[in-house]
């Protein structure tokens, strides 16, 4: 019995000692932070991100970064569950619609004012700066990269249908009138499924919004981003046009990702959900010549939906971690040698002038033609989550025969109610 007691005492003493040892050595040790990243180009690829973090650790060996990779299907759920469980990541890589309009608006994010120095404000493009802050001027995102979402056509198919005459291959633009003619020509040439207004979910919905808004110059929100304006005459006219066109189907069984696959395997003649990353990621699966195009507009002067990605910090109440997270962001986005690497990993373009980081890359040069067409970044409007759902529901209604005006009015009522509740 005595032996057992002695052993128990020894084990207990050992455990207490080891705990103390951990505490003693913990002081002055590295700060651990977590980075959760959505698949923004190769920022979703662990091999690439490990390399970026190795660069960071060379400069800052005292900060350990643990990475978790999210996808766009479940990423939001994972983060929301983590928030509710008090385990939110320190840093998240995504866009203003989540960092500013969602988690920022809910008071979960750290104000990044000290990263937004005068020098940074001077360097970063105004439209990007405006998207990274809320209406009170609080910055919840420090941006890294941006792109313009385009559409794309199967050039071989259009050539066979003699439809290339309706578009400007040099500027990658076309008018609404010519878009209609081109789709009709391809359809008449035997391609039954020229394009699909996909609407089974919110994936890739920027494509359908941009298509509808551009056709007759409609807008999605007002300039102040306080109200949804999708019920305008221009948008209704655009939806009615799409509904009436041969070869354009309102398809409630596919979302943006499915549409891309159908385009890449030649089932569809055009994709409305496209950007440089799609062409790079699907290069091996495409057996035809892809021609990226701006969305058609009446005057041939498109307003493309932009994507801006950057870092936000969750306020987990630990100042040391917040400071370490800011150091990480500053290194990735501002370090002279690292910034270009960080942007290249995204396959998109820098949010400030870093020189021609894609020199010699023909594909990137081709797609850079779309950057000047970037339109208003309205995704920071209140009630965004509800509005996105209401949008694809509205397209489904139109696809199943509901009157366009009625469906659009219902969408705007739902979305504006959500915006009012959020504001």
């Amino acid at each position, binding site marked *: 019995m005595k032996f057992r007691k002695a052993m128990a005492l020894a084990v207990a003493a050992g455990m207490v000692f080891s705990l103390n040892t951990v505490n003693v050595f913990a002081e002055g040790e590295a700060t651990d932070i977590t980075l959760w990243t959505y698949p923004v180009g190769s920022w979703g690829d662990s091999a690439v991100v490990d390399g970026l973090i190795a660069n960071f650790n060379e400069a800052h060996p005292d900060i350990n970064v643990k990475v978790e990779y999210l996808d766009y299907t479940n990423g939001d759920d994972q983060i*929301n569950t983590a928030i509710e469980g008090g385990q939110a990541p320190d840093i998240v890589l995504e866009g203003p619609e989540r960092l500013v309009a969602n988690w920022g608006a809910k008071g*979960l994010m750290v104000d990044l004012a000290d990263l937004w120095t005068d020098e940074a404000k001077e360097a970063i493009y105004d439209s990007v700066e405006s998207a990274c802050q809320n209406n009170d001027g609080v910055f919840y995102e420090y941006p890294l990269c941006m792109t313009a979402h385009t559409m794309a056509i199967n050039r071989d198919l259009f050539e066979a249908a003699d439809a290339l005459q309706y578009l400007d291959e040099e500027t990658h633009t076309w008018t609404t009138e010519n878009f209609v003619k081109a789709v009709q020509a391809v359809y008449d040439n035997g391609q039954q499924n020229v394009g699909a207004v996909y609407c089974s979910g919110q994936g890739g919905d920027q494509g359908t919004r941009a298509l509808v808004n551009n056709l007759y110059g409609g807008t999605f929100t007002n300039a102040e981003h306080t109200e949804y304006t999708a019920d305008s005459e221009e948008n209704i006219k655009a939806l009615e046009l799409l509904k009436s066109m041969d070869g354009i189907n309102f398809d409630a*069984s596919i979302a943006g990702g499915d549409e891309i696959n159908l385009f890449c395997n030649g089932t569809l003649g055009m994709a409305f959900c496209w950007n440089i990353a799609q062409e790079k990621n699907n290069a091996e699966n495409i057996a035809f010549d892809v021609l990226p195009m701006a969305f058609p507009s009446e005057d041939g002067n498109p307003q493309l939906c932009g994507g801006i990605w950057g870092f936000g910090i969750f306020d987990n109440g630990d100042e040391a971690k917040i400071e370490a997270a800011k150091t990480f962001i500053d290194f990735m986005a501002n370090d002279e040698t690292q910034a270009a690497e960080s942007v290249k990993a995204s396959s998109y373009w820098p949010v400030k002038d870093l020189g021609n980081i894609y020199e010699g890359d023909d594909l990137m040069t081709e797609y850079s033609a779309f950057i000047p067409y970037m339109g208003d970044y309205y995704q920071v409007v209140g009630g965004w989550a509800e509005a996105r759902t209401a949008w694809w529901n509205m397209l489904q209604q139109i696809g199943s025969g509901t009157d366009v005006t009625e469906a659009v009015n219902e969408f705007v009522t739902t979305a504006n109610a959500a915006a009012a509740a959020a504001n």
Partner: protein
Amino acid sequence: MSTKSRMSKALVRRETIAGYAFMLPSLIFFLGFVIYPMIQCIITSFFDSTMNREDIFVGFGNYIELFQDKVFLGALRNTIIIVLVSVPVVCIFSLWVSSVIQNLRGPLCSVFRCVFYLPVVTGSVAVTVVWKWMFNNYYGIFNYVGKATGLIEQNINWLGDEKYALGCIILILLTTSVGQPIVLYVSALDNVDQSLVEAAEVDGATRLQCFWKIKWPQIKPTTLYILVITTINSFQCFALIQLLTSGGPNHSTDTIMYYIYHTAFKLYRYGYGNAMGVVLALAIAILSGIQFKLAKSE
């Protein structure tokens, strides 16, 4: 005598303590992961609760809103349709299949049991992906076979057309639901007292009479269990909807479970979502209660 009694009391106490100690891990799990969330769910349903904000007490506000919410009422209707179709079909089909395969020789019976059980053990995501491919509007096998055999003239958008989408969901649900009932029924039929069946046959009973008068009463507890679990599973139909249709087209495949998920995790309306959860739990409890009652009274 008194010493004996004291000893026996001590023994009883010791056994009771040991019993509770063995039960403790399960009890902790049950209290922490079942009872506590249930209580929390009921409490939260009386609040306007969202992320990072103090909850606001709204009384029965969420419940009143529920029954004015067109989408919820549609989801309720769809859920009831799924339950009404799938529960009897699953029970009847699995009883029929198990009656047939039970008479087969051992290995052949096992093969059929495996075949029908396969969709149950296969991950629901994998099953759904295959079905999604088969239902594909552009190159799905159903459209291909339909057109090749002249049954349809042009492709049908199975999951994208509200006329067909719910039917497709129910079809997939049936394939994933029949496996377990078949296995249970085969076991139940194996356990039927053969001497009674043989005696009835000697007395001139037909096969149908043997089934209804001898076998059916003995497999009734299994039937009750199958009815209850199929009802609960049908009420909780979620993964298929999330992976295939997201409740569309035009809310035609919304179910209460999916709408709870959408409301709570996409719109962050936790109180409203919990109110739906309470209504769903009540519906399942009432229906299961009726099933138990009916089974008992018979």
